[in-house]
């Protein structure tokens, strides 16, 4: 089909701009405290500067073509993997994640987190690999290629160790496998070792899950060897789970435990979540007013400009403000999903969906974390959380989406947006 150039996807661009403006406003507000901190109160300016850079980058990407993007997948992937290896040796920590060596520092200045770039690069690479696949995979073994693509950066990220970003990689992987047409029983079987790992803490629940898995293996008529191997893996996972738990860093264990019960540790890890809920809850319907949140002003709320920036939204702008922010995110995801459905080829479609799911998992985990619906993992909130590299990568993602949208088919879609 001949390429019919369409204009820029203005609704998508507008939503992204609104979200970013909202975000910078909140970074500004987060800097307003009763005992002022010079660095934090001026962060909004740096964020604005990064936004300008991000817009340029996004524009540049949009001017390119999907072909170019596809071509750049390999070098980007290799580059980001290289950087991830590099930060393992020379990385530095920052903020809440002081013990996580995620930052690339050059000459004392923190340049960025390679993991952010790796998210984009892995998405592109995964899209390439999956787009090249002609048949729908029938067995787990046929999935080795995409798994290797995700597995390498995932392991490097986990080695930092950055649990949150690791979760993002897994989410991207599953979302794109699903989008590429891998049947759901296969996805479930793929996920089964992980599920076993989590459920192993209760023998009863794990037993029930194992029976379901056996039924699934029999029903989907898996290859004998593969089925047996899968079940054995699950058993092994169930056994090693407690051992694996011991290998987690104490702060990681604590975070997971505190997620289950924040009151366990009101003054340390649970403190953040408790204060976040207090901030959000005390915001009420209309909030305490822009820049006027007492939890934030008096610094009860931790990580106001990064991980818990959404709590500032909740406290100062209330349920109304939260609803507007969530509505913008929802609109953004629906519009981007539309881009994925209307892409003219498998690769752009996969890329679009991968980007959407990556941003989606960020939003869900981060926002959920502020209300203790998700564990505190240090995953930033796209367009809101202060941080240059993440904003840049997010906007490059937007640029890619705009490009794909521009090359997509012009037919109306089911969702009707």
């Amino acid at each position, binding site marked *: 089909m001949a390429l019919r150039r369409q204009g820029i996807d203005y609704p998508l661009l507008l939503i992204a701009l609104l979200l970013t403006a909202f975000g910078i406003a909140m970074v500004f507000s987060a800097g307003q405290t009763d005992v002022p901190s010079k660095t934090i109160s001026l962060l909004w300016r740096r964020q604005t500067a990064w936004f300008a850079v991000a817009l340029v980058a996004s524009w540049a990407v949009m001017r390119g073509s999907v072909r170019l993007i596809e071509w750049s997948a390999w070098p980007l992937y290799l580059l980001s993997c290289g950087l991830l290896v590099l930060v393992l040796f020379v990385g530095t920590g920052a903020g809440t994640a002081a013990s996580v060596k995620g930052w690339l520092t050059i000459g004392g200045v923190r340049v960025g987190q390679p993991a952010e770039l790796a998210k984009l690069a892995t998405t592109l690479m995964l899209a390439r690999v999956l787009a090249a696949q002609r048949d729908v995979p029938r067995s787990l073994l046929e999935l080795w290629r995409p798994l290797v693509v995700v597995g390498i950066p995932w392991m490097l990220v986990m080695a930092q160790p950055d649990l949150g970003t690791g979760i993002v990689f897994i989410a991207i992987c599953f979302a794109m496998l699903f989008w590429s047409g891998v049947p759901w029983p296969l996805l479930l079987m793929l996920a089964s070792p992980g599920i076993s790992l989590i459920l192993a803490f209760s023998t009863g629940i794990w037993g029930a899950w194992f029976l379901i898995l056996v039924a699934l293996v029999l029903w989907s008529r898996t290859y004998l060897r593969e089925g047996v191997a899968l079940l054995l893996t699950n058993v092994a996972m169930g056994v090693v789970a407690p051992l694996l738990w011991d290998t987690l860093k104490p702060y990681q264990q604590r975070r997971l435990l505190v997620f289950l019960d924040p009151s366990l540790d009101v003054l340390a890890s649970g403190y953040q979540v408790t204060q976040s809920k*207090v901030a959000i809850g005390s915001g009420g319907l209309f909030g305490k007013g822009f820049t006027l949140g007492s939890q934030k002003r008096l610094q009860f709320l931790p990580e106001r400009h990064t991980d818990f920036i959404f709590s500032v939204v909740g406290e100062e702008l*209330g*349920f109304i403000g939260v609803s507007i922010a969530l509505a913008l995110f929802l609109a953004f995801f629906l519009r981007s999903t539309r881009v994925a459905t209307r892409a003219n080829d498998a690769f752009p479609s996969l890329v679009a969906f991968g980007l959407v799911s990556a941003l989606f998992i960020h939003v*869900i985990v981060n*926002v959920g974390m502020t209300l203790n619906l998700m564990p505190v993992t240090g995953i930033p909130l796209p367009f809101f959380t202060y941080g240059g590299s993440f904003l840049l990568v997010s906007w490059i993602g937007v640029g890619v989406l705009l490009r794909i949208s521009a090359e997509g088919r012009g037919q109306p879609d089911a969702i009707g947006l």
Partner: protein
Amino acid sequence: MLSFTVLGGAFFRTQVLQNAQYTLQSENNRLREVPLPGARAIIYDRKGEIIAENLPGYSVSILSPTEDSLRSALTTLGKVIPIDQAQQELAVRRFRRAPQRPAVIFNDASFQVVSVLEERRVEFPGLIIQSSPKRYYPDGAAMAALVGYTGEISEAQLALPRYDGYKAGQQIGRQGLEQQYEALLRGKEGRRFVEVDARNRVVRDNGVRPEEQPEAPPPLRTNLDLDLQRFIHEYFGDSLRGGVVAMDPQTGGVLAMYSAPTYDINRFIGGVPVKYYQSLLDDPHTPLFNRALKGTYAPASTWKLATAIIGLQRGLVTMDTHMPQACTGSYYYGRVFKCWDKNGHGDISLAQAIAKSCDVYFYQLGLKIGLRNLIAGGVSLGFRDSTRIDLPDEKRPRWPESVKYFDAKYGPRGWNASVVLSLSIGQADNAQTPLTMARFYSALATDGAAPTPQIVAQPVERTQIVNLPPDKLQGLQLALADVVTRGTAAGAQIQGLTIAGKTGTAQNPPHPDNAWFVGYAPADKPQIVVAVILEEGLHGTAAAKIATKLMERFLKKKLTLVAVTND
């Protein structure tokens, strides 16, 4: 889509439905209650003179998020003003008890400390300096045996149900009136709110929320006579030791109560300096021992009236009854029992025996009554009971309950019937406080009913202990008046004013004798009962002099004196 619905729902639940709960939590986060200590009630004497009042003072406290930060703040403060190790530890302990309240560093900071700290306030976030009324007793030394003092509530006290509404760091009354009337004296604590940030730095000091002013309760009026207290204090000076109780025989209203040697109770307020306390403890004359309330002494001759009453009640004697044996200076009962006057008193009546305090007469009267009856009589006259005065820690007097007491104490064969001789002249196993003796003489001075002594006026409570027809009681009263006009207390007579009373000289081996006087005035219309014990006062006349001066001081202003004759 689903996830967003769930998220939206969760936010709705948190922000709209649970808003009140979280608003409260957020307020609790940012607001710290700073207690404004309330002034305690003023205590007045019967004429409106001040016994206890409050002076302006300053307290210095600090808000800290953690114990560590408190310690470091104390160290920093220590570079500006002197804080010794004990004070630091105390502040830390206070913090542990109530981390949300400012930990008090100085309860009573000097003006100098306050001005230094005010100047450098910016350096110490969380520092709170505020006015805090300080208790003061204008006549601290004269009142030490009575008023008690105030101090910070202890951990042990906090655990008691009695102190349910109290918080750590608050002041409570200790001992004396301050303890007894804590509920009436305690000031109502006010509070103000300061806004703090996550590190407990005070961000806004005023107007965060309206203040609640502390309230002082209405003043406490007492029956005490401050003028008498001062007078006794001056009279005792530094050399005399003993205790004094003066009360109204009709109402039981306590006019004065004093114990010597005394000390400055003002130094006890808010924690007594260790050195001063140790010096009081080390003093061989035990100034901390309240002789009026807790000192028990053999009542000696002052108790002879009790023997007389028991004899009269049983109908064994009248005021004119003579004993079989005249007094020759001693009496033989198994061994020789001496009379205090070795020349003897001759053949005398009960009335004369009381006036002359003749031991030999009372030995025989005691024998006539018999040990069992004497003991029972003493019990019914209240010599085993404390007076239930409105002061804490009154000491119960000692008097045998029955004959079994002697078996238990000395063994069935360890004593003999001659003990009744000693008991009948107020010696042996009899130990009374000035307070119990004052109560007994109050009954004697009036209609035979003993009032419950009260420092703060309450409904009068009288218990009939002496059961004699009015004429017999009057006979006793006349004989008692004769003691002062003619008898052993003759030196104490004040012209124009007749006092009824009895001296006593109690052996106190190996020390010199203790001197007693218990009496009342005016004899015909008693308005004041005084009991005096002078430790090592040698003879009762010394005590009688004090009592007489005291009565004079009290009565001169009050009435024209009536002379009672007893010839």
